[in-house]
C-alpha cells in the first residue's frame, strides 16, 4: 500500500451499505410527523413518507396486491392496488403514492373493482394453469380428492377420512349415495379410465366406522374451537342440516337439531333404500361423529306445527338454520292422477326404505314415472318387494337421466325402462282404480333460441301400459306453509323455494338462514352437504358479528371457483386398469335389502388410490391470484373437457380470450420448483433476488406480450448464481416458484466415484460438507465462491428469526458433534455474540480433526 492513495472505506462494504440504503424499505423513525388522512370514511393517522398502502395495511384495510413485496419499495406492475384519491382523475396505485395530509381515499369503489377485475381477467386469459384438479373443482363440495387419495395410498385411512371431513362430514354415506360427478372429470381418463374416487372414500370412511365400533372416536377435521356461548338451532337433520350442525359445532357453537321424524337423517333415512345405504351400520354410525361434537337432537318436532321460527328465537337461539329439504312431490297434472293406485314415490319409499313391505305391492304391475334417483329407488325397491312387473318411463333419453349411472343395475335386476315417452293420462276402471297408463312418444324438436333441442310429443304415437300401480317420482319442491306464521321476513322465491342468499344464506329475517334443498330445490346429497357447510361458515361469520353484506360483496365465503385453461394431457403413465367394486349376484340382491356392493380389500383400496395423478397446484391455499380471482368473481366455473384428451377453457365468463403461453416446468433445481405457466410476471422474485439477496437470478426477459420473468435464456437455476435461499419461492404470489417437495432426507456420497474435487464443499451454502482430517482442506485452497455471501448476509435480517434460528441450530449441532467452527466460516447473519461464543472463533484455520474420522463421506441435507 502506498501513501499516495487516499484512505478509502472498503468498497464492498460501501456496496452493501448502498444497497441497504437504496433498496430496503426505509426504516422510518416513529417520531416522524403524523397527520390525518381519510380512508374509506375512517380518519386514520399516517406518518410522513408512508404510502397509502402502508397506512391501509396498518389499519386492517385490505387492498389487493400481487406485485407488492413489503421488503421493497412499490413496484407498480400489477395495478391491483389502485385507489381513488379525491380530486384526481385517474386512480393512483397505493403502493407507490405517499399519503398526504388531508387526503381522502376510497379503496373499494365500483370503478376500482372493475379495473381490478379486468386486470385479473387479463391475467387469467394468459394463465395456462389451474388451481384445483378437475375432479375437485367438479365436486359440489370441493373435497381435496388428491389429498385423501394420497393418504389412502399410504394406507392411512383415518387421515384420509379426516381430510375428507374437512369438506364433507360423511365419507361413508357419500361413498354410497354420491353420483360422483368428480369421476366424469378425472384426468386419469386420459390415460385409461377414471379413478374410483367414490369407492375410495367409501373404503376410508368404512375403516373409520370399523374403528369407531372398536371404541375409537371419529376423527375431527379441524381443531374444535372453544365454546362461543352462542346457540344455533338447525331445523332438519338431513344432509344439509347435519353438515351445517357439524361445522357449527366445530366452530364452538351450541347446536340443537330439530327433526320432525322419529329418527334423524331426512332423505338419507327415509328416501334412500337400505340396500344402497344401510341405516344402522353406516348412517347412524357416521352421524355419531356429530353427536360426539356435542350436537343435540330433538325429534318429532316439526317446523310450523310444533314450533315456529319466532319460538326458537324467543328461546334464545342466536341463529336459526332452516334445512328442511324438499318433500312435496310434484304433480303431473294429467287426468286420472287422483285414481286409486297412483302413489307418491316419496310416500312409498318412506315405508319401503325401512325394509317394511308396502301394503299390497307384491305381485302388482308397477309403472314408475321419472328419471332421478328417487325413480331408481322406487323401481329397484318395487323389484325387491316382489312386484310382478316394473316399468320405468322417462320422457327424455337415457343419457339425460340424472341417475343414468344406476340404470343398468336396475335393468339387471329385472325392471324395464322406456325412454322418450311422456304420460298422457292414467287409465282407470269404474271404481277409479288404476288399470294402466297412457304415454306418448317424444322426439327432439328443432333447436330453440338457446340452441337446446327440447322433446316434443309425436302425434299418433300414444300407447298404454297396463298396470296396477303408478309411482310418481318426478321431483319435489319444498313445503313452505310454515313461513306464514311466526316467520316474518322469511319469504319464498319466485321458484317457490326459500329465498336465501347463495353466499351468506341469509333470509329476509336477521339471524335466520336457509340452506340445502329448501333453498336450491331438490338436488344431490353431495350438493346439499356442500350447501350445509357453506351455510355453517356464513352463520359462524354472522355470530362473530361480521358484516354479511361486506362478505357478500367480497365473496369471502364463496367457494373456490378456479380457473381452467388447456391442460397438457398425460401420456407417459403406465396403464393400470380401474379396480371395480364387485356386486352380489343379481338373483341374490334383487330379493334382499342387504347392501349389494362388495367393498374393496385394503390392497385394492390402496392400489386404486395409487392411480391418482395428483394433478393439483401445490400453491393452493397460498395463492394470492386465486384468492383475488374468487373475490372479484373472475374465475371460470366450468371445465369443458374436449374429447381429444385436452381440455379447453370455458369462454363463458372470462371476457378475454386469445392466445396464451405454454411454458415448460423446470424441476432441475434441488430446492426450487419453477412452473412458468403459473407466472403472472409480477417481478417479485426478480426484485427480491436482486435487491435483497443479491444473486439476481431472474429478470424480465423478452418484450411485449411474450415478456416473462425468468432466468437468462430460461436456463436452469443451477446455472445461475442461485444460493438456494428460497426467497423467490417465499415471495411468489402464485405457484410459479415453489419450495420443492423433498423426499430425500439424507444424501449418500458414493466414495468409489468421488474424485475429491471439493466442489461440493465450496458450493454448499450451509457448510454442511467438510473434508476429513486425512485430506487437504479443499475450500481453503480455492478462490472464494462466486456468490458474495458476505454481502448477502450483511443485510439486516434481525427481524427474520427463522434465518437466525436456523444458523444457531446448525451451530449448536455442529458443536455437539465436536466440530470446530471458525467464525470466518459462519454466515455473518448470526448476531456477533453467537458467532464469537466459540473459543476458537478467530483462528484462521479452525478445521480440527473430527471424531470418528471419515468426514466428508456423509452429509445431512436437512
Amino acid at each position: 500500500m502506498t501513501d499516495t492513495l487516499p484512505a478509502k472505506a472498503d468498497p464492498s462494504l460501501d456496496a452493501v451499505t448502498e444497497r441497504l440504503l437504496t433498496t430496503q424499505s426505509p426504516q422510518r423513525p416513529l417520531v416522524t410527523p403524523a397527520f390525518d388522512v381519510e380512508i374509506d370514511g375512517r380518519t386514520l393517522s399516517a406518518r410522513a413518507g408512508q404510502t397509502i398502502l402502508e397506512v391501509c395495511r396498518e389499519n386492517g384495510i385490505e387492498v389487493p396486491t400481487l406485485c407488492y413485496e413489503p421488503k421493497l419499495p412499490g413496484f407498480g406492475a400489477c395495478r391491483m392496488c389502485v385507489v381513488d384519491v379525491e380530486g384526481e382523475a385517474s386512480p393512483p396505485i397505493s403502493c407507490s403514492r405517499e399519503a398526504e395530509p388531508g387526503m381522502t381515499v376510497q379503496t373499494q369503489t365500483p370503478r376500482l373493482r372493475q379495473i381490478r377485475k379486468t386486470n385479473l381477467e387479463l391475467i387469467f386469459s394468459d394463465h395456462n394453469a389451474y388451481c384445483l384438479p378437475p375432479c375437485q373443482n367438479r365436486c359440489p363440495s370441493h373435497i381435496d380428492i388428491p389429498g385423501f387419495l394420497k393418504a389412502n395410498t399410504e394406507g392411512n385411512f383415518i387421515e384420509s377420512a379426516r381430510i375428507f371431513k374437512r369438506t364433507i362430514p360423511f365419507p361413508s354415506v357419500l361413498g354410497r349415495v354420491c353420483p360422483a360427478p368428480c369421476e366424469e372429470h378425472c384426468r386419469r381418463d386420459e390415460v385409461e379410465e377414471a379413478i374410483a374416487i367414490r369407492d375410495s372414500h367409501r373404503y376410508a370412511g368404512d375403516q373409520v366406522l370399523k374403528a369407531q365400533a372398536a371404541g375409537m372416536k371419529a376423527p375431527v377435521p379441524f381443531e374444535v374451537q372453544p365454546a362461543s356461548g352462542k346457540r344455533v338451532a338447525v331445523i332438519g337433520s338431513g344432509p344439509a342440516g347435519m353438515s351445517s350442525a357439524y361445522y357449527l359445532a366445530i366452530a364452538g357453537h351450541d347446536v340443537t337439531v330439530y327433526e320432525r321424524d322419529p329418527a334423524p337423517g331426512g332423505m338419507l333415512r327415509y328416501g334412500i333404500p337400505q340396500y344402497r345405504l344401510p341405516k344402522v351400520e353406516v348412517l347412524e354410525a357416521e352421524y355419531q361423529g356429530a353427536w360426539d361434537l356435542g350436537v343435540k337432537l330433538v325429534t318429532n318436532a316439526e317446523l310450523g306445527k310444533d314450533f315456529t321460527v319466532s319460538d326458537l328465537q324467543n328461546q334464545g337461539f342466536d341463529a336459526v338454520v332452516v334445512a328442511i329439504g324438499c318433500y312435496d312431490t310434484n304433480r303431473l297434472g294429467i287426468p286420472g292422477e287422483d285414481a286409486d293406485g297412483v302413489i307418491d314415490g316419496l310416500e312409498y319409499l318412506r315405508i319401503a326404505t325401512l325394509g317394511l313391505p308396502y301394503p299390497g305391492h307384491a305381485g302388482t304391475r308397477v309403472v314408475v314415472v321419472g328419471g332421478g334417483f328417487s325413480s331408481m329407488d322406487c323401481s329397484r325397491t318395487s323389484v325387491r318387494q316382489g312386484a310382478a312387473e316394473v316399468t320405468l318411463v322417462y320422457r327424455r333419453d337415457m343419457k339425460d337421466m340424472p341417475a343414468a349411472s344406476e340404470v343398468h343395475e336396475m335393468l339387471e335386476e329385472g325392471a324395464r325402462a322406456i325412454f322418450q315417452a311422456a304420460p298422457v293420462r292414467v287409465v282407470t276402471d269404474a271404481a277409479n282404480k288404476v288399470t294402466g297408463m297412457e304415454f306418448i312418444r317424444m322426439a327432439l324438436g328443432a333447436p330453440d333460441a338457446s340452441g337446446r333441442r327440447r322433446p316434443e310429443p309425436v302425434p299418433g304415437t300414444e300407447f298404454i301400459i297396463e298396470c296396477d300401480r303408478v309411482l310418481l317420482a318426478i321431483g319435489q319442491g319444498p313445503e313452505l306453509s310454515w313461513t306464514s306464521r311466526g316467520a316474518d321476513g322469511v319469504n319464498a322465491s319466485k321458484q317457490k323455494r326459500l329465498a336465501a342468499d347463495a353466499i351468506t344464506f341469509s333470509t329476509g329475517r336477521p339471524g335466520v338462514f336457509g340452506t340445502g334443498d329448501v333453498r336450491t330445490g331438490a338436488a344431490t346429497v353431495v350438493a346439499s352437504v356442500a350447501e350445509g357447510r357453506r351455510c355453517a361458515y356464513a352463520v359462524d361469520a354472522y355470530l362473530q358479528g361480521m358484516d354479511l353484506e361486506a362478505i357478500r360483496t367480497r365473496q369471502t365465503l364463496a367457494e373456490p371457483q378456479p380457473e381452467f385453461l388447456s391442460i397438457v394431457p398425460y401420456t407417459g403413465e403406465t396403464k393400470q386398469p380401474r379396480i371395480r367394486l364387485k356386486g352380489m349376484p343379481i338373483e341374490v340382491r334383487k330379493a334382499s335389502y342387504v347392501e349389494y356392493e362388495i367393498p374393496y380389500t385394503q390392497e385394492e383400496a390402496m392400489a386404486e388410490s395409487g392411480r391418482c395423478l395428483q394433478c393439483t397446484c401445490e400453491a393452493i391455499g397460498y395463492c394470492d391470484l386465486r384468492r383475488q380471482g374468487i373475490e372479484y368473481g373472475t374465475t371460470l366455473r366450468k371445465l369443458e373437457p374436449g374429447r381429444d384428451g385436452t381440455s379447453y377453457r370455458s369462454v363463458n365468463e372470462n371476457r378475454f380470450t386469445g392466445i396464451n403461453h405454454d411454458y415448460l416446468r423446470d424441476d432441475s433445481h434441488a430446492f426450487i420448483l419453477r412452473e412458468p405457466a403459473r407466472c403472472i410476471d409480477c417481478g417479485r422474485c426478480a426484485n427480491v433476488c436482486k435487491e435483497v439477496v443479491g444473486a439476481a437470478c431472474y429478470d424480465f426477459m423478452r418484450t411485449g406480450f411474450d415478456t416473462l420473468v425468468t432466468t437468462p435464456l430460461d436456463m436452469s437455476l443451477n446455472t445461475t448464481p442461485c444460493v438456494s435461499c428460497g426467497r423467490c419461492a417465499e415471495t411468489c404470489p402464485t405457484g410459479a416458484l415453489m419450495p420443492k417437495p423433498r423426499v430425500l432426507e439424507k444424501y449418500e456420497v458414493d466414495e468409489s466415484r468421488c474424485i475429491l474435487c471439493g466442489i461440493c464443499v465450496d458450493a454448499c451454502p450451509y457448510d454442511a460438507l467438510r473434508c476429513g482430517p486425512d485430506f487437504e482442506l479443499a475450500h481453503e485452497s480455492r478462490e472464494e465462491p462466486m456468490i458474495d455471501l458476505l454481502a448477502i448476509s450483511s443485510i439486516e435480517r434481525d427481524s427474520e428469526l427463522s434465518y437466525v434460528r436456523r444458523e444457531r441450530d446448525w451451530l449448536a449441532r455442529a458443536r455437539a458433534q465436536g466440530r470446530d467452527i471458525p467464525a470466518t466460516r459462519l454466515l455473518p447473519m448470526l448476531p456477533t455474540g453467537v458467532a464469537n461464543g466459540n473459543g476458537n472463533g478467530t483462528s484462521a484455520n479452525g478445521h480440527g480433526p473430527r471424531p470418528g474420522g471419515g468426514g466428508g463421506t456423509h452429509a445431512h441435507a436437512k
Partner: protein
Amino acid sequence: MELLAGRSGWPSILLGRAATLAPDAGIEAAEAAGAWSAWKNAVASIAPDALIASVERSGLRGRGGAGFPAGRKWRAVANADRGQRYLVANGFGADPGAHAERLLLERDPHGVLEGLALAAYAVGATEATIVVRAGSGSAAARLRAALAAAEEKGYLGSAVLGTSIRLSVTVRELAGSFVTGEETVLLRALEDRRAQPDQRPPYPATKGLWGRPTLVQNVQTLAAVPWIVTHGAEAFAATGTPDAPGTILLSLSGALGRPGIVEAPMGTTLRDLLDLAGGATGTLKALLVGGPTGGFLPAASLDLPLGYGTLTEAGALVGSGSILAVGSETSIVELATLLTRYLSDESCGKSIPCRIGLRRLAELGDGLCTGLCRPTDEALIRSLSADVRDAALCGLEAGAPNPLLSGMRYFADEFAAASAGGSAPAAAARPGVSA
C-alpha cells in the same frame, strides 16, 4: 426527411440557423450565425432564478408530447433538495414516424447544446446527458463534434467561460423499443437497468437519474431556450397561441405530395400543414395525429388548429408531432389494429394491463379485420380500453387504446360493417407507421 419551407412570416425559432448553415459548418460559422451568444450572455449577466422566471413567462411547453409547462418543471427541479442534480435531454425520437429530434440534432446541434447549457445552469445541474437513438446516422456524430468544439472553446466543461460553473455533457446512444422514449424508462436505461417505467409520482424532478432531482426535457424544447433568452420571453409568448406559444417541428408523411418536416407555429391548422406538404395525393380519409399513441381525425377536421387542448379533445395528441395522412383506400380498422399490435409488441411487459391488455385489444382488432368477431367486441374494446387507460403505468399504455378508440369515434360505420361480419372496406394499401 426533407425539411419543408414554412409560410413566409412564420417565426423560425428552432431551425432559424439551419436553413442557411451547412450542417458541418463548424462552431465558428454557427457562432457567426448567433449560436452560443445567449449562453455567454446568461453566464455573464442572468441569475439562474431570473432565467427560470423568463422561461415561465415565455409560456414554453415541453415538446415531448404531453406539453407540460417547461418553466414549472425547471422550478420544481431547482427547488428540489440540495446536492447533485442531473439534466437529461431526450433526443431518442421513439416514434418511428417522427424525425424531428434527429433532424434537429443533425442540422443544428449547437442550438440544442446551448439550450441544454442554459437549462442546466438554471436548475443547477452539473451533469447532463443527451440521449440519441443508436444507429440514427450522423446525428450522434455531429452532436459529438459540436460538443467537442464547445468544450474546446470553454463553453462547456469544468470551468465554463472562466467562471466556477461546471457542466459536463455526455452523449449516450441508446437502443430500445418505442417505450424507451418515456422519461422514467429513459432514466432506467441510462442507469443500465432494464428499460421499464416507474410509477410517477415521484416525478424525475424530485427523484430521477440515480434517485436525484433530474430535469428531463426534449431536445426540441431545449432548442427554443436560446431564442427566448435572446429575443425575450414576451417575444416568444407572442408567437404561436396564447395557450401554447412557439413553434413545433412536425413530421408530415403518408399519402401526401411532398412528405417532410416543417417548423410551424402552434395554432396552425391541419389544412395549412397538409398544403405545405403538397396536399393529399388522393382522397384524404383521415389523419393520424400524434404518432402510434395518437388518434385518427376525419378529413372533416382539417380546420382544427394545432394545440394541446384542441387535439386531445378531438381524440388525438400533439405527441411526437407526426401527422400521417391516410388515403381513402386504407381501412381504418386495419390501420388501428396494426398500430395497436405495434404498441403491444413494443410494450416493455412490466404492467399487466399493458402486457396482456394491449395484446387482447390487438386480437379483438384482428377479429374485426378478419370477420371473426362477436357482436359485443366493439363494446369490449371500449370497456377494456377504459380500464387499461385508467390503470396505466406509463404513457404508452395510457395512449395505446387511442387508435382504436378514435377510429371507432370517427369511423363508426367502418367498424360497424366489420363487426357485422362484412370485412372492412377493401384495403389495397397498408401504410406502415413510418412513411
